[in-house]
């Protein structure tokens, strides 16, 4: 409750927005090249059984892009809770090499994706995906989802706070009603957004 609103959706969700506006040689590279490089490194990591030895490369890229390395390491660590459960179960079954591989593989892969997102703004990544043939509608919906995540998230947080002042999220029924209210206001907001887009002359066939 003492965290800022956006942090409730996920810790530090806008940190990539901040990092990706940097101005290093890596930031200025062609986004298509970066996306392809990211996939290449991901596939290399998943295929090569001693790919852990390219860990220093990630540090090198982060340093060249002047992205804070501890922060980046923390972002990539978000993958670990899921991995740790499976690694623990695998280790309990006696398959230690596989448990270790799960840990370093998933962490290194998360590091590659984080590096891409720390050096390329999300909208550029999505545009690049569209140029590679990802359906336009999907790209646009993803844009909108990201754009309104903070807005609807803040609203959900206000609803939650209001429920807490009334005595907490005590019943299933009240939570369902809150969610329905959130749905209704999101629906109305979408209509307002659409009208605002039209009034500003949006002509996109999809709009």
């Amino acid at each position: 409750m003492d965290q800022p609103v956006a942090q409730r959706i996920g810790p530090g969700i806008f940190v990539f927005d901040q990092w990706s506006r940097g101005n290093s040689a890596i930031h200025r590279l062609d986004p298509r090249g970066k996306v392809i490089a990211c996939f290449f490194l991901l596939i290399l990591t998943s295929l090569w059984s001693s790919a852990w030895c390219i860990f220093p490369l990630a540090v090198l890229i982060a340093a060249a892009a002047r992205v804070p390395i501890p922060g980046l390491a923390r972002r990539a660590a978000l993958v670990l809770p899921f991995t740790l459960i499976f690694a623990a179960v695998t280790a309990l079954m006696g398959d230690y090499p596989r448990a270790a591989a799960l840990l370093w593989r998933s962490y290194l892969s998360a590091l590659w994706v984080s590096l891409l997102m720390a050096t390329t703004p999300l909208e550029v990544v999505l545009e690049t995906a569209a140029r590679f043939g990802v359906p336009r509608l999907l790209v646009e919906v993803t844009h909108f989802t990201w754009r309104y995540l903070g807005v609807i998230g803040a609203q959900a947080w206000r609803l939650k706070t209001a429920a807490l002042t009334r005595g907490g999220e005590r019943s299933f029924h009240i939570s369902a009603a809150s969610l329905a209210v959130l749905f209704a206001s999101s629906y109305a907001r979408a209509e307002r957004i659409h009208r605002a887009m039209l009034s500003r002359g949006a002509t996109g066939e999809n709009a």
Partner: protein
Amino acid sequence: MHIPDGFLTTPVWASLAALSLPSAAAFARKAQSGLEDGRVPLMGVMGAFVFAAQMINFPVGIGASGHLVGSALLAATLGPAAAAVVMTAILVIQALIFQDGGLLALGANVFNMAIAGVLAGYWPYRILSGTRGRMAGLFFGGFLSVIVSAALCLGELALSGVRMPAQVLGISVLVFSVTGLLEGLITVAVIGSLTRMNPRWIREPAGEGRRALALLACAALVLASTGFLVASALPDGLERVAGLVGLAGHERAVLAAPLPDYDTLVIDNPWLRRATAGLLGLGLTTLACFLLGKWISRWRSA
């Protein structure tokens, strides 16, 4: 259950990506063709809504609580194609920004949650809509969407060699059943509130004649995913299925050709032969139903 990178072997993630990519594109085309004015902002805002909805906890007694997953709710309000697109957009953002699910594993996650999850959430509603069991359809939809996604996820992990002992698998199935029940209850409660506020928000599925088809497809999906999970609980059998269809379970065999002892394997293993045949049959049935449905709908509209 978002699978990160590094869990799935190359054949598993690559084949699921090859399956999800065209399916997602087909759903996008379908959603686009049925696109009314202002649908793109609506779909985007609904994506944000599903994210934000996770903040609202649903108490289930003794201090425990759950939250909405959303596939069934979206399918009932936006229609299945648009719901699949919105769920895919959510998974893309989760993979890129939240490190929740990998980028190579995105195809698998999209298949489990945005395609199979949304269809499993939609079909029961589709079957029972227009009858008095409409709310039961929504409940089963919510329940099945969670169960099917989880079963597929665990099956894919097992196919990639990430196995769990039977007890752990049993516990996780129990946990997923509870999550599924909760999802069903939340979906019903929220749709109930929404119906009171504005019935226009809930889509009544159009085209009454294809109910039997939806039932068949739903049954096939549930059978296939539970069969998949059961197979993954029997490691030996699964390993052989994996070898049989060329999905070798170990890293060093990633690019290896299908096993040379293919013939003996099939002959020696009547159970396996039946299981493979069963799965293949289910797949073919689903395909046949789909084509038949397409043909009937075209024939009707002609």
